[in-house]
């Protein structure tokens, strides 16, 4: 519109198409009789989609590199939350309540 854009638009469009393709894959896989692999496939796709958005759309790639520490810290604490909570739930006697 005004100035000629310097940043290439291609990677963003490719990422967008990849996200839509992964969505289609997620929906199609839901109808396949793959049993216990359903959650693995569905959450695997969600993690891949989130990684694309984090790295490209939220520009984790660029400066300041310090943001990796903060972005990573969130997921490190999430690991603690999941890990420690899971230890409780899956070693608790009499759970689930019948």
């Amino acid at each position, binding site marked *: 519109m005004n100035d000629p*854009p310097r940043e290439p638009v291609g990677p963003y469009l490719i990422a967008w198409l990849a996200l839509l393709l992964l969505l289609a894959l997620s929906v199609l896989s839901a109808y396949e009789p793959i049993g216990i692999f359903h959650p693995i496939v569905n959450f695997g796709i969600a993690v891949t989609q989130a990684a694309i958005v984090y790295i490209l759309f939220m520009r984790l790639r660029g400066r300041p590199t310090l943001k990796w520490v903060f972005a990573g810290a969130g997921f490190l604490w999430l690991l603690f939350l999941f890990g420690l909570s899971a230890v409780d739930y899956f070693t608790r006697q009499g759970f689930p309540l019948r």
Partner: protein
Amino acid sequence: MPSARTLRPELQYADLEQQSETAQIGMWVFLATEVLFFGSLIFTYAVYRTVYPVQFRLAGRDSLILLGSVNQAILVTSSLTMVLALRAARAGAQRALVWLLCATAALGVAFLGVKGYEYAQDAASHLLPAIDFVFKPGYHAPAEMFWTFYIIATGLHALHLSVGIVLVLIFAVRAARGAFPPAYDGPLEVVGLYWSFVDTVWFFLFACIYPLGRALT
């Protein structure tokens, strides 16, 4: 906030770049807390899905996967328009910036519209836990638990998205007034981070809700 005319950093920063980077890191800190917020919700879901796999699959089959998918496509596209808006800001294309921000907000409103329609369909199918929940044959208490998760998780997500829409609209007005010259787009970058993060939350909620029980015969 530096004025568009003088473009001087605030007192505590060496330059505008440092000011912008500090703001971005501040948003990443906030997003880390959001990861834990939605993470605890998804962990609770994971526990009960593991304990009651059959009931969760039965309940999940009643979710409207077409509307959920349309909404994901809308959100993904809104993240694209958002990132293109930031690109326009960096290139100094002010008109494109304003229009792309408006498109982003419009896509956000479209998401809420589809979600509202979906809630109405769920209500018509008597799938509102504690308010109007009818157990079909073979359905037990965990099925209602699944729908409780559905309402809380998607409701909180819609709340986050609503905040995002208001922010993007405010920034569209500010952008139209020339508040973001190419040399300083820090606040825009921060809003962009928030918007795309809310998008990523939906990927996980989608995986939790919509694909369940489709392969049941």
